[in-house]
């Protein structure tokens, strides 16, 4: 039986981060993962991440994944793939299935970083081919380069449903509807707004009645539900779709911890059965640690910090560092993690209706129910200004932990301040040079450059654009509003793609000046 200082189960964002920290401190570390490739779900995340610089904000998930693998290789972390850990026993003994062989390993310490599995909901027809998980959609389109379907209904309006929905549009699929049984959109408003402005309709307080088809999905019926989740007769709506994608939450994969005898609890705020642990992942069994989604559903950014914490805590447990060093190292990670856990979407706010922003501004009701801020609501937010000449218009209306826009502006005209969840505001005293760095840096694609004095009677609108084909200069089409409806005629007057924009193209259109505050998307004729 082989023995290691530290055995980590799971080579995702938290497991790899833990391994890096432990290996850096001289520990002999091995990581097992059941998959063919390391990185967990990071390589399926093609959107720019939120947070601030220390959280790798505005870097795309798969790029963070590559960085993490490089760092793991540099520190000499050993990752064994296609290796399924099937048991965790007394005295930190693990049993792992590699190929057809079952091997035993012993760890002086163990970190469980197994992540989470997707939840599902059942309805008549849910077993039909064509009903898939959101993770399956991401795997097919972003890893294997195959479209998950052509016309898709997305069930679930949390960040997973919204982000995967947008990715489906990016690879050329059509989204017939985005449906959620909840009365309000669960994910970030900016993610919803990206979908809504392309014309994706949102159906809140709706769920699936049935999926239709004999051999595979050919259609779906949804209906509105009342407050006790009963269908309201007469509210049925039918869509011809070939794919139904489910993004209805995640559950921690904590079975190994339960098996090892760690104290567990059922905690809905953390996503289900989770080990009882302290803020650095120490479970009830000394030497067994947890990190990432297995101890509570959050996101990859926080999982990476939790992983680093657990790796450092394991190093201290085995005496590789002393308590002073432990406390010093954890303090800065504490700060980084608490930054991500602030704002309206903080874990403690899960399920709560928040009516006002920290600034005391009423939250957009339309954003929560339809996926876009209504024209008569947008003016009240501090990022929405009218100035002479070109200037940024920031349609960021919820307190989310994110601030790359503040650093992106070379002139410093965007202010968020120390609190990274504060709404961005424009400093009118600094003049915008129209470089577009803020537009490309916004992970929520919520920043536009507007020039209401572009030419006599016309305004220019510069928007982030991450679709193919990229419209060419001179192409005419329609400008769509935040709600995805046609507002006016538009013409493409500039297309900018720079390496610094990291694949977010800047599309500038010209619209009649009276639509400057309404036009937010472009559809070529």
């Amino acid at each position, binding site marked *: 039986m082989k023995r290691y200082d530290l055995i980590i189960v799971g080579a995702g964002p938290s497991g790899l981060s833990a391994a890096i920290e432990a290996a850096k401190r001289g520990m002999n570390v091995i990581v097992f993962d059941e998959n063919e490739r390391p990185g967990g779900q990071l390589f399926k995340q093609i959107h720019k991440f939120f947070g601030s610089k220390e959280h790798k904000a505005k870097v795309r998930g798969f790029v963070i994944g590559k960085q993490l693998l490089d760092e793991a290789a540099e520190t000499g972390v050993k990752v064994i793939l296609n290796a399924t850990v099937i048991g965790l026993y007394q005295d930190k003994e693990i049993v792992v299935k590699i190929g057809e062989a079952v091997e035993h390993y012993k760890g002086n310490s163990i970190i469980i970083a197994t992540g989470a599995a997707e939840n599902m909901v059942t309805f008549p027809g849910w*077993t039909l*081919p064509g009903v898939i*998980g959101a993770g399956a959609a991401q*795997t097919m389109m972003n890893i*294997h*380069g*195959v479209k*998950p379907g052509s016309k898709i209904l997305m069930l679930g309006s949390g960040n997973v449903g919204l982000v995967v929905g947008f990715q489906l549009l990016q690879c050329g699929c059509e989204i017939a509807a985005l449906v959620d049984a909840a009365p309000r959109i669960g994910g970030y408003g900016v993610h919803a707004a990206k979908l809504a402005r392309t014309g994706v309709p949102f159906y809140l307080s709706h769920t699936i009645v049935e999926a239709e088809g*004999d051999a595979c999905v050919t259609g779906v019926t949804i209906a509105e539900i009342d407050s006790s989740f009963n269908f309201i007769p007469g509210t049925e709506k039918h869509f011809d779709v070939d794919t139904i994608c489910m993004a209805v939450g995640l559950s921690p994969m904590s079975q190994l911890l339960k098996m090892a005898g760690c104290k567990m609890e059922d905690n809905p705020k953390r996503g289900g059965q989770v080990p009882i642990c302290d803020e650095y992942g120490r479970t009830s069994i000394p030497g067994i640690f947890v990190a990432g989604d297995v101890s509570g559903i959050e996101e990859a950014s926080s999982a990476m910090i939790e992983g680093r914490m657990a790796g450092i805590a394991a190093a201290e447990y085995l005496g590789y560092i002393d308590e002073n060093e432990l406390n010093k190292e954890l303090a800065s990670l504490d700060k980084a993690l608490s930054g991500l856990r602030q704002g309206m979407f903080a874990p403690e706010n899960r399920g709560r209706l928040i009516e006002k922003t920290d600034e005391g501004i009423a939250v957009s009701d339309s954003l929560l129910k339809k996926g876009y801020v209504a024209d008569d609501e947008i003016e009240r937010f501090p990022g929405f200004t009218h100035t002479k000449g070109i200037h940024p218009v920031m349609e960021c209306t919820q307190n989310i932990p994110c601030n790359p826009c503040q650093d992106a502006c070379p002139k410093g005209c965007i202010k968020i301040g120390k609190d990274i969840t504060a709404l961005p505001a424009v400093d009118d005293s600094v003049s915008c040079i129209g470089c577009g760095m803020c537009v490309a840096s916004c992970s929520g694609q919520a920043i536009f450059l507007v020039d209401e004095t572009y030419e006599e009677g016309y305004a220019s609108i510069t928007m982030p654009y991450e679709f193919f084909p990229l419209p060419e200069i001179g192409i005419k089409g329609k400008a769509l509003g935040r709600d995805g409806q046609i507002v006016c005629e538009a013409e493409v007057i500039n297309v900018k793609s720079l390496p610094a924009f990291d694949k977010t193209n800047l599309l500038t259109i010209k619209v009649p000046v009276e639509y400057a505050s309404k036009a937010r998307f472009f559809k070529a004729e």
Partner: protein
Amino acid sequence: METRIENHPILGDTKKGKPVTFTYNDMEVQGYEGEPIAAALKAAGIMVHRYTKKEHKPRGIFCAIGRCTDCVMVVDGKPNIRTCVTPLKQGMKVQTQYGVSADTFDKQQRGV
């Protein structure tokens, strides 16, 4: 193969292995070496991977990461192969799985 994403706005050209031919129920299908069997089938528009043993209901890709076992098929004569995590090779023989066999239920009942 229009279900293949040839050029992606973020990922660019997706890297593929060398083209290979395999059989799906005696039909020749093209795919790329090393991609999951399920990806090649999906790209070819094949949705049904198997029929359940008791109720003979169709199943296809569901989780695509080897967790749910909905997509299992008979591969090179071996049943219950998770096609979403099994890399495709030249000349593979992939068959619809009926219960746990490549024989249709009719054939199974006749006991041939």
